[in-house]
């Protein structure tokens, strides 16, 4: 407490929802299919709960086992599933389940009866609890789960949760434009999230200034919040409950109840810059009938007027606090907004109006989970931000819904997978704060959205076929594949209506979603056989190919090395049209080279690159590689070998987990070993650590340079040449990214639509060299 002025709104904010808790504990409400909702409960390790008046959020931590196929190099017989060895990899996962508080007793019962593995180990432990209902339900929780209840300060939990989301979750924050395209303008991740103002709108409103991970201050609030909307709304309309009030407000016309500027002035009041439709006096037309001759208004009109009154006021007061503390960013949380378009629009309008555009109002995709996340994080060493980072699991999360959507699921889920390293921005980005990985924003570009959603739906059968084929001895593969297909297709359909549900809709997020789903349904690596086969075929050709290259003149060789990388990049099972060609089995490196179009290419900086090579060799290059087989072995390795022979150190960055036929880190190690056995230059470079392999830290075949493993980010600091290869990493993402060092982006566009969209033809070539600048 700094001064007595702190008292003012401290109390209203501290408890946000307690006053709406009904007496009596409901227990007879039947749950929907709970198994689907409380996933992996049997392995739950720790719990936290955030109980609000209308919604409760339960958080738990579990270890999820996934099968991983071992990629083994030395095999006598041809690779097939029979002689694969699987390893179990345990990954940590955070689960958040949101449900209506009226289900609380049932949910607790369900959890208790399903804590199969951990019932014993849970006894004597505690559950962190926050939210207005934590006091009221403490004994119920203790009794049902056999856990003692640790109550945590609500504001502290909210802030912890907010920091966690802003740091870990892509596209967490968005600016809302009700009539804009896109409607949801997601904010790019920024290396520094502080300082900001967090406005929590519960029953009352509390306003916190957050300056760092550990320092925040309650600076104020107001008593006029969600509770006022609910309470007054219940008095002046017939609506029963909060959501009904919101629905009423959706169809009302506030102009029948509010006095507008034009009602007083007859039009705009230009001198003060007050537009005719601005509300001058909320409810100002609802004066005594005797005096007005009876204003005509309906319940819906009143509900809308009330929603505007409260939302405008919250925005106004929040903007005054922001200006007072010289902050330009406000995040909103709490049960009042719940992604309701009209409320978000009004709050945004008000903040923009009163701050004259100097303060920006942002909302959070997971605002409902702030408290539960924060409570869970309290003392959770599983979440140490120095050691780990977290990734939204698109397969297990339900995404953002508009609260006005009727029949919105009463349950919501968020699942986060732990990544065993903190993630960092690529240090070579020219403007990290404004870095956007994705080339096309499918939220804003409807044509592109329609194309890609249809394209992914069409290709789903190919993925499924390959997934099924990858496990010929499994008895459950058909059933799992069917579920996988249903899940993915229904997700595509959901995204068609709600492109904003998981942040910016991009080709990258669609590809990542496939990988999440494949893993979730235990198809850990459908392309394993294919990858191994292709790697081995390519390795067999490597020696001869290197000899051919060595026979060329230096000038021709330099050019040929680039063309080879491009030709190798044709071997991409992720591209629908190429996959068909590859299936013909007669498609080889030569055919690929023939398919590379004549120059000039769509983006053609080959001459600049060759000219650059006349100069000093690079000190250290990082190459983000793409496909297995011909691509890595006959394209990337000769290029790498040449760089090494010039005295350039090389880091080959491969995907951490399987994604399509991309070469993974563990596969790359095997390939390098095999290549070293063939070629002394590569062998020497490997031996001297002048050539190393590292993990990219990506889930799918695209590249988000704001989320690199810390050790890679550290290594990249001394890199003076960045090579990014392939459609996923250099076209779908990073095509327009700028760097502080030299960069070379090489890719063949194996999608007719995309090639045309970018102004080229099928197999258009991107060869983009940039000198980079600071």
């Amino acid at each position: 407490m700094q001064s007595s002025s702190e008292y003012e709104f401290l109390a209203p904010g501290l408890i946000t929802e307690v006053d709406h808790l009904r007496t009596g504990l409901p227990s007879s409400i039947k749950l929907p299919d709970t198994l689907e909702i409380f996933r992996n409960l049997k392995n739950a390790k720790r719990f936290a709960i955030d109980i609000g008046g209308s919604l409760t959020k339960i958080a738990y931590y579990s270890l999820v086992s996934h099968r991983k196929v071992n990629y083994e190099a030395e095999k006598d017989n041809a690779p097939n599933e029979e002689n694969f060895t699987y390893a179990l990899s345990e990954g940590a996962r955070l689960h958040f389940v949101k449900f209506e508080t009226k289900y609380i007793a049932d949910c607790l019962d369900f959890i208790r009866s399903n804590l199969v593995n951990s019932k014993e180990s849970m006894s004597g432990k505690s559950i962190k609890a926050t939210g207005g209902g934590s006091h009221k339900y403490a004994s119920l929780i203790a009794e049902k789960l056999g856990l003692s209840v640790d109550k945590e300060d609500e504001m502290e939990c909210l802030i912890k949760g907010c920091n966690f989301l802003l740091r870990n979750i892509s596209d967490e924050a968005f600016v809302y434009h009700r009539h804009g395209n896109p409607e949801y303008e997601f904010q790019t991740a920024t290396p520094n999230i502080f300082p900001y103002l967090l406005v929590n709108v519960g029953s009352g409103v509390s306003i916190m200034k957050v300056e760092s991970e550990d320092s925040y201050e309650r600076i104020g609030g107001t008593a006029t919040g969600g509770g006022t909307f609910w309470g007054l709304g219940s008095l002046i309309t017939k609506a029963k409950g909060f959501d009904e009030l919101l629905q009423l407000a959706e169809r009302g016309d506030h102009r029948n109840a509010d006095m507008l500027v034009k009602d007083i002035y007859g039009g705009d009041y230009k001198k003060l810059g007050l537009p005719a439709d601005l509300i001058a006096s909320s409810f100002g037309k609802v004066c005594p009938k005797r005096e007005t001759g009876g204003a005509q208004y309906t319940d819906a009109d009143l509900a809308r007027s009330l929603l505007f009154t409260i939302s405008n006021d919250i925005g106004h007061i929040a903007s005054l606090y922001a200006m007072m503390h010289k902050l330009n960013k406000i995040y909103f949380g709490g049960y009042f907004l719940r992604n309701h378009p009209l409320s978000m629009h009004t709050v945004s309008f008000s903040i923009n109006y009163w701050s004259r555009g100097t303060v920006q109002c942002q909302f959070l995709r997971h605002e409902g989970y702030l408290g539960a996340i924060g409570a869970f994080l309290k003392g959770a060493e599983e979440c140490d931000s120095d050691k780990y980072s977290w990734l939204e699991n698109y397969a297990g999360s339900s995404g953002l819904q508009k609260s006005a959507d009727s029949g919105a699921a009463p349950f919501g889920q968020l699942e986060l997978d732990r990544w065993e390293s903190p993630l960092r921005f690529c240090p070579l980005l020219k403007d990290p704060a404004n870095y956007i990985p994705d080339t096309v924003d499918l939220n804003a570009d409807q044509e592109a959205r329609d194309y890609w959603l249809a394209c992914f739906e069409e290709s789903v059968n190919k993925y499924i076929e390959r997934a099924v084929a990858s496990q010929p001895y499994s008895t459950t593969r058909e059933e799992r594949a069917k579920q996988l297909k249903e899940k993915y297709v229904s997700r595509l359909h959901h995204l068609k209506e709600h492109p904003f549900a998981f942040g910016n809709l991009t080709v990258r997020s669609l590809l990542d979603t496939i990988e999440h789903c494949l893993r979730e349904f235990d198809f850990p690596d459908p392309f394993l056989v294919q990858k191994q086969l292709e790697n081995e075929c390519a390795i067999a050709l490597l020696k001869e190919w290197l000899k051919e290259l060595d026979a060329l003149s230096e000038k021709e060789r330099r050019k040929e090395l680039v063309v080879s990388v491009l030709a190798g990049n044709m071997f991409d099972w992720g591209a629908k049209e190429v996959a068909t060609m590859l299936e013909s089995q007669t498609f080889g490196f030569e055919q690929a080279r023939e398919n590379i179009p004549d120059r000039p290419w769509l983006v053609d900086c080959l001459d600049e690159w060759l000219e650059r090579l006349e100069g000093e060799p690079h000190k250290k290059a990082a190459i983000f590689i793409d496909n297995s087989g011909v691509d890595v072995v006959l394209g990337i390795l000769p290029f790498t070998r040449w760089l090494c022979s010039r005295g350039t150190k090389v880091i080959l960055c491969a995907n951490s987990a399987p994604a399509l036929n991309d070469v993974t880190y563990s596969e790359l190690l095997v390939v390098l070993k095999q290549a070293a056995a063939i070629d002394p230059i590569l062998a020497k470079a490997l031996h001297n650590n002048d050539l190393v392999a590292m993990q990219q830290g990506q889930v799918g075949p695209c590249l988000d340079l704001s989320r690199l493993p810390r050790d890679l980010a550290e290594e990249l600091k001394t890199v003076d040449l960045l090579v990014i290869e392939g459609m996923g990493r250099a076209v779908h993402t990073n095509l327009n990214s700028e760097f502080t060092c030299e960069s070379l982006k090489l890719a063949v566009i194996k999608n007719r639509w995309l090639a045309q969209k970018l102004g080229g033809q099928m197999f258009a070539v991107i060869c983009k060299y940039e000198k980079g600048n600071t």
Partner: protein
Amino acid sequence: MGKISKKTMTKLRRSPVSYFRDTKNEDILFTAMPWFGMDIGGTLTKLVYFEPHNYTFEADDVEAEVLMNIRKYLTKNSAYGATGHRDIHLQMDNVMVNGRKGTLHFIRFPTSEMHNFIELAKSKGMAKLVTSVCATGGGAFKFEDTFRQEVNVKLEKRDELDSLIQGMLFADTNNSHECYYWSDPKEEDSCHKMTYDFSQPYPFLVVNIGSGVSVLAVYGPNDYKRVSGTSLGGGTFLGLCCLLTGCNSFEEAIELATLGDNKSVDKLIKDIYGGDYERFGLPGDLVASSFLGVFSFGQMALKERRDAVSREDLARATLVTITNNIGSIARMCALNEKINRVVFVGNFLRVNPISMRLLAYAMDFWSNGTLKALFLEHEGYFGAIGSLLASDDRV
């Protein structure tokens, strides 16, 4: 002195100007008598009438007779029609307006009754007499055409904020008890009004609470800016009270509020924390106080509480909610502008000591005594006074 020939009257009446200075003899001639200043707000119209002293007319002058009649009608009555009122207690005697000594009369009526006012003006023969009336407020724009067509009167539009500030300064200068504050605003028994010396006013913040609210920062007589405002004002209080209690007037709403208690409507801090609020550093007596921050209408989500609540309590809760909200905004504006004196005006404060005391308490408490809430006796009439004074400063 004071005799105006018929010829001069006729000449002057053609002019849109309500008076002019005769450069030859330095005497001030008047036309367009009587003098009115009008502030047409969203809910109320405020009318200031200046009655000059020592003024006689030639007995046979028909127009003079009309003037006398109007004066008589306005000054002998305190109610006009069903909804017009003259605030006798606010009357200002022996004030100088544009060089003339006289009495200022303060009249108000609902803006929705404008057509009746115009009819009355017609019936009293005003249309024959006056060519222009100084007016401010939104209605000066909105009713411009109506006045011209119905009574052949031109509304001389005066700047709203100029008029407000000039009116405030005029009232304070001419009335030694104009400005006051509430001492001990929290205590029912010891609380009382105290005169405040506002002769060195700058800088100050004006919070004008009419149907809506405007907040101005004033640094000098002609140096001010509108810094904020809110649509949650007197109109919101009255509108919500009508919906919640079925009351029929502002006065009735205030009476209900006076008898009510917001504790059964709002959620108080002690309702939430029981006795356990020491942890949050809140002294018990503050928590017990109905002046403290609450969740407005926080108990009303429950049907059984709604069924049990009284009209009086609802009116009180509405009043407290609106007032506290205005107080918050005013306090932050004062802090942002680094101004310590906050003058609350506007008709929302009429017959409304509850709000004034709440505001006084809030300003003092949240600022550790650095902010001072000030009030003016002529609450809502400053725009009208100012428009009368600013008659030579047309917009």
